[in-house]
């Protein structure tokens, strides 16, 4: 590091400028100036804090990390604080002021400054928020992406059949099937047209169509913005490391401050219920309870207090739930497919990447950025097969149970189709 301090700081400012340009290109409105970042490092005061509150709030809202509806009733500063606190927790961040006091001051006795906000921003950037912002923006602007198919209803509690409404139910289910078929055929049409568009992009014709259209003009504008965004991202990626070095120095500053005693346990033991009502956990526990028991005897899913205490100890050492135990991981699980993807038409022969053709992937590979459609198709076929198998099993179970039921009735005989 022989360069003078001035040179270093100039470089840092440029890098932060690149970051700000990138953030602005993703459509965020509240991006502070690079100078503000530097001021934040040394505790810039309320004005700087304010700008960072705005920035963090808008980042968390755009990426959908925080469901907006939970905060609609709040206003003003406290809204920012609560929203940002929730969002940071959601990404696994801890700081005194996040889980600490709920009053206007924030932080229990520690000194809260804009540096904390800067560190929080750094954490968000480090955990992939930039990519989320980019994805979000690309989805907004790009018309030829392939998007998810959101046809699944959200409710997941068990419901019961009412005999009088059976007819209507049958009719509705038939109608649903019909809608599904319409969807399939419309999808086919769209795919055809999409291919035509992708093909048209690759054409090198010099012909002159006579019509201009507003649609194309708008398209050009959007695509131009997209290109700007992607370029900004590439620029950022090239100089990213300088930013992280600088953030390291911010951490240094933060740590050399008089540190407040870190709480080793949560401030309050009350577990609040989220606005969904802890449904996910209930379902989970229900599932555990219904698991078939081995011959070893009953073992309750909800551990006793001692069990929990013991496991709590182990947890402190960091229980590793990141990898599944062997038998579990051999259970067929539905491959989750990416929600959004981009289709690329390749006209030249694709380069083999050492991928053994005999190897059929059963799950989405670790971090692929590019995949041949044959592989994706395999995954989907596999998923379909799994689903069909599950469905048939369910139907078989239903049939058997119903037959049993009817069998117990006198005078009635069920003849299956």
């Amino acid at each position, binding site marked *: 590091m022989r360069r003078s301090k001035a040179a270093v700081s100039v470089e840092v400012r440029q890098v932060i400028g690149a970051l700000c340009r990138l953030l602005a290109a993703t459509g965020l409105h509240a991006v502070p100036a690079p100078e503000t970042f530097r001021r934040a490092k040394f505790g810039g005061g309320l004005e700087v804090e304010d700008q960072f509150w705005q920035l963090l709030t808008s980042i968390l809202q755009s990426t959908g990390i925080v469901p907006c509806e939970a905060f609609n009733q709040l206003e003003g500063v406290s809204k920012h604080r609560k929203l940002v606190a929730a969002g940071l927790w959601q990404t696994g961040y801890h700081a005194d002021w996040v889980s600490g006091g709920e009053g206007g001051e924030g932080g229990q006795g520690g000194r809260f400054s804009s540096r904390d906000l800067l560190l929080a921003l750094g954490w968000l950037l480090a955990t992939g928020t930039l990519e989320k912002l980019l994805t979000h923006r690309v989805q907004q602007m790009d018309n030829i992406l392939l998007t998810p198919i959101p046809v699944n209803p959200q409710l997941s509690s068990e419901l019961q*059949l009412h005999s009088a409404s059976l007819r209507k139910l049958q009719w509705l289910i038939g109608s649903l099937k019909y809608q599904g078929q319409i*969807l399939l055929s419309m999808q086919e049409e769209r795919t055809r047209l999409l291919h035509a568009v992708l093909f048209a992009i690759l054409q090198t014709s010099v012909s002159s169509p006579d019509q201009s259209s507003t649609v194309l003009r708008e398209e050009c504008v959007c695509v131009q913005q997209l290109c700007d965004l992607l370029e900004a991202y590439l620029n950022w990626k090239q100089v990213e490391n300088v930013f992280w070095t600088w953030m390291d120095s911010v951490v240094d500053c933060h740590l050399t401050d008089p540190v407040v005693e870190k709480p080793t346990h949560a401030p309050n033991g009350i577990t609040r219920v989220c606005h969904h009502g802890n449904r996910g956990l209930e379902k989970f526990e229900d599932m555990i309870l*219904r698991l078939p028991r081995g011959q070893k005897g009953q073992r309750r899913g909800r551990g006793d207090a001692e069990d929990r205490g013991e496991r709590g100890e182990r947890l402190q050492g960091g229980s590793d739930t990141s990898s599944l135990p062997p038998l579990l991981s051999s259970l067929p699980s539905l491959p989750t497919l990416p929600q959004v993807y981009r289709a690329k038409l390749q006209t030249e022969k694709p380069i083999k990447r050492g991928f053994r053709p005999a190897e059929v992937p059963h799950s989405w590979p670790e971090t692929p950025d590019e*995949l041949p459609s044959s592989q994706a198709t395999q995954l989907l076929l596999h998923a379909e097969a799994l689903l069909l198998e599950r469905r048939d099993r369910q139907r078989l*179970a239903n049939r058997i149970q119903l037959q049993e039921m009817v069998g117990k009735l006198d005078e009635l005989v069920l003849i*299956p189709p």
Partner: protein
Amino acid sequence: MAVTSASDEFSLAVTTNMSLLSVVEQAIKSCKAEQARIKDSIQLYREILHTVTPQPNTDCEESDSADDAAAADTDVSPGEKEDIELLEQALEKALWVRTGTGPSKKGSNKQCAPRKETKEGMQAFAASKGNQTTTRSTSKSASLARKEHKRPAGIVHHQPARKSQQAVSASGCVDPGQLHTSAFHSKNKTNRGNVLSGNDLGRAAAISMPSSNNTAPVSHTAESGAPCLPQQNGTASDQTAQWRSLRRKQNRLWDKVAASQRKPVPGRSHFMERIRATFPKDWPCGSPDQTRALVDRLTHQGYDLIQHCQTQELVAKQTPETATEPGGKTLERWQMTAAELQNFAGQVKQEWEAWDRWRPEGGCLCPTRANSVWANGMVAPLPPTITYTTEAELRELEKLRMRVALLQQKMHLEQLSSIVPGPGCPDVSVLRDVYSLLGEGGQRFPAIVLDSEPD
């Protein structure tokens, strides 16, 4: 999960709960919403294609016709002439069928028309296959054109036959008076197939302009040769070229961005480590998002396992003779897996609760479908790219995607229904309906027979 085990009572309950209906209605609504979205994209793509690819000009009143007309004749190769004759004949037949008049009159009428005229006629016929309004026909013809465009050149000889079939089945009403003056814009030179007039026939123009008559400006019938339309709008072609180059640039940039993802960023991981070091001791690893994805996945796997075991038990009960060793081993394996799942689930639950202790107001740990979290808990950084080489691949991919989504939807609904035993004797038709709904997916019905003979 769908049929809870019968207790001593074994009749069907009649419970009042309309929610299942509303769930299905919701599903239908979301299907319709998706249809609207797809329709919008289709519209958009059609517009883009219409603008970007050369079209026979429908609105162009200019007639550079005369010269082109002369030139056009010489451009037609003998082979094409043959095709055209064949097509002409076929179309004559079509006319007879349609208008119900005898062959002689129409034939002579047709024959005295100039060659190009019949080409227009063929266009008209081909176009009339679709629809009759001007505006819609151009978009339709765009899609038709796309269809033809992709066919390899070799089959252009088959096209006359196909066209005649299409003409015969054409729903539009074709009138010789309607053989009109569509400008016949040539395809560009770089068109992949050998550009032949047969191909161009696919590019139907709008039909509903009544023709002045057969000698009307025939313009732009040059095939595989000069681009005949004058560049009335220089900016238009610029726009197309601009769009193309922008899109290509975007593709290149995207590839670079994806490549940049593969490079590790040591500074970033170092920073994360340092921040993590400031967290309290019992802070769980990962993030709430990962935990909730894990909970979701385990829940599904658990239910799957339960269903497996249940079904196996039921089947074993029904056919006790087959419940031999192999069945026993599988059951044991399931039980081991279940035990493992239970253990692991316990750990995950601990983690969940740890997160919950620190949770601020507004944080949520419920699994939502909105997460773009993969099965292994990793967050998808950017939309991946799927490369394909032929259109069929893309179509199959999309079709499968839709099928899987619809299948998931259906299964979700099937899982929601349950039968609860209750007092009273069930209605026979209800039994039958429920059986078909839950046992056969609503596709087939059993027969329930009253057996009132004393045994």
